[in-house]
């Protein structure tokens, strides 16, 4: 079972954890990507995330299916936030349940790696010297 969303709302990882918990799972692994203040000594003031929402959700569903197929995972919930995010706020959260811990870790790691690789979401970094789209040639 999977649940994915791209949302403007604050992410509460508790809801994801509750959603994935299962009587036959002994393991829940979660990952949260949060807004970091300093990267290589450069200060970030805040970020703005933009998504191609329908496609992003569709890709996240696909990643969810992959996790459930490739690993012995039972449930996965993944939410990515868009809009303005301040330092410390959660940009993405994933929770994965599995009977055993190895699978929960692998599934969760796989999900965030794939999200960062393929899901059409972009961040614009606002720093002390102005703003730029991260990783873009634009």
């Amino acid at each position, binding site marked *: 079972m999977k649940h994915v969303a791209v949302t403007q709302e604050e992410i509460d990882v508790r809801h994801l954890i509750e959603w994935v918990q299962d009587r036959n799972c002994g393991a829940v692994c979660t990952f949260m990507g949060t807004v970091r203040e300093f990267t290589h000594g450069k200060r970030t003031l805040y970020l703005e995330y933009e*998504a*191609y929402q*329908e496609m992003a959700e569709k890709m996240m569903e696909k990643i969810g299916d992959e996790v459930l197929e490739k690993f012995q995972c039972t449930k996965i919930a993944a939410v990515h936030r868009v809009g303005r995010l301040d330092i410390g706020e959660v940009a993405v959260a994933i929770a994965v349940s599995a009977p055993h811990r190895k699978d929960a870790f692998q599934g969760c790691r796989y999900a965030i790696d794939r999200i960062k690789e393929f899901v059409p979401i972009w*961040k*614009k970094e606002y720093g002390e010297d102005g703003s*730029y789209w991260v990783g*873009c*040639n*634009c």
Partner: protein
Amino acid sequence: MIKLQTKVKVLCFAGLGEAIGKCVEIPVDSEISVSELRERLISTYPEHERSIRSCMIAVNHEYVTQETAIKTGDQIALIPPVSGG
């Protein structure tokens, strides 16, 4: 073979969306491949060639190959290198 002129709407995101607009219309022949569409975009926005070339192209929310044919009503999007998470 008669080629009909039509317009394809292309969604743009991130820096590219800011630069050329979030939804651009490109006049095309009725039959066009993804790589042909990319060349039309580049000739329309030559100053953004590098950034257009760095994009993947999605048709109906799926990444597609260069050879994919675009059909009327398809939702086309230019996907710059993603940076979510």
